């Protein structure tokens, strides 16, 4: 069990009781492979018997749809956008993440407050203002920061994914470049600078994401196991591997899939 610790002013009306779950954050810029790794981690954790809830930006019941519609219209102002995302975050924190953590789940979140802070600051918001709004956030058990070596690499990945460049991921609202590519590069560079700044402040564990998916996944598994294991010993993967065990890189073996998909605990 662990005491709930918040960055600032906690949410009113909250039972601040110790919780037994783990909050694991996967952060990084667009195209860095976060969702791939969240999916791999989830499979791996579930196969080793951990109940998992995964969540991410704009996935709240309250504000998810509204944000998507507002983004589609391209008329979302800078302040409005930040607050809409904060609403989405608060809803997921109160109704998904905290109940799951109390119920002992591993909560895997694709982005947390850091992406929101980076996006807001890049758009000219007062860094203190955004941080205070997100003071409601629970301090996670671990934050893994996936980082690639160059923004050009990110552009290649976004294209390879088949999605192409998105208006907001390219920061088109900021007028940084003549086309989506130039704007994407300029925007992601700014974001990267903010993430790098936050690294020390929030104690990010940096993971070199320029390597192959397998290597990154193996690295993440080791680190997540360590983060989860500080009290419980439920994870077999943390032990020193014996000679007969396969290489870590090949260890993505979903054993028993637990039915924790409907993880809306509470």
């Amino acid at each position: 069990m662990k005491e709930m610790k918040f960055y600032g002013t906690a949410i009113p009306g909250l039972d601040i009781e110790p919780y037994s779950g783990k909050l694991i954050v996967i952060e990084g810029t667009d195209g860095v492979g976060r969702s791939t790794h969240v999916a791999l981690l989830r499979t791996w954790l579930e196969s080793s018997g951990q109940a998992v809830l995964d969540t991410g930006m704009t996935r709240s019941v309250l504000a998810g749809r509204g944000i998507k519609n507002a983004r589609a219209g391209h008329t979302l102002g800078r302040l409005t956008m930040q607050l809409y995302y904060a609403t989405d975050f608060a809803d997921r924190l109160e109704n998904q993440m905290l109940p799951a953590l109390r119920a002992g789940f591993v909560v895997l979140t694709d982005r947390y407050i850091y992406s929101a802070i980076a996006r807001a600051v890049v758009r000219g918001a007062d860094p203190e203002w955004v941080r205070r709004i997100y003071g409601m956030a629970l301090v996670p058990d671990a934050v893994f920061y996936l980082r690639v070596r160059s923004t050009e690499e990110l552009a290649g990945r976004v294209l390879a994914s088949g999605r192409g460049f998105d208006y907001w991921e390219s920061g088109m609202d900021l007028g940084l470049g003549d086309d989506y590519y130039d704007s994407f590069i300029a925007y992601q560079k700014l974001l990267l600078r903010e993430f790098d700044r936050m690294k020390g402040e929030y104690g990010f564990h940096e993971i070199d994401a320029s390597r192959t998916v397998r290597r990154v996944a193996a690295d993440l598994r080791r680190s997540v196991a360590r983060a989860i294991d500080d009290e419980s010993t439920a994870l077999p993967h943390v032990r020193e591997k014996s000679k007969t065990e396969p290489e870590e890189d090949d260890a993505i073996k979903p054993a028993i899939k637990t039915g924790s998909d409907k993880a809306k605990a509470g």
Partner: protein
Amino acid sequence: MISYGHHRYPGQLFVVEGTDGSGKSTQLALLHQWLKAEGYPVFFSEWNSSPLVKDTTRRAKKRRLFTPTTFSLLHATDFADRTERNIIPPLKAGAIVLADRYIYTAFARDVARGCDRAWVRETYKFAVKPTVAFFFRAPLDVAIERIASARPNLKFYEAGMDMDWSDDEEESFKIFQGKILDEYDHMVNEFGLTAIDATQSIRVQQRQMREIVGRHLKEKMKEKVLLPK
């Protein structure tokens, strides 16, 4: 940074605040008519009016999805859109902006719901400081009497039913409005709100309002927007 505070735009911003049933909207409508008749460019903006947020708010109210924090943040989102769309641009253009409810509504309601005072104020730090913020003060029993006759069916959040203060809607509404009124009273000094006694006749209140607004009006405001270039 996007923090407007004391704006330096040529326009003027007048806002009305007060509990439900204080008569503030009536007063603002009368002021609006007068300013238009006088030839001033006027722009009206009301609480909960962002086209980007409206559907989300409506759905959340219907399905009762709000907690005090998300209620506060979604209203702040709505207000941010109003600020970016309907308040800053007209002020820059030199118009008079009239706002029915402003940040003080959030400060009163959200704190009554248990949100942290400093946190809510920080959230709204981007707001433009009004030229004058009128607070129509009606004693609790007067306001409740007016509401009861006008709107017999109280809505869930309007009555503060989400807070479990009472199972009885009317009782809950009274408790909620009482807390809101306390918050407003504290804000009179904190933000220099201009209190108007809302038990006076509508005409007397309007005369007081026009007298105060008149001091901030300049003839050249009429020309600025109306004259063709």
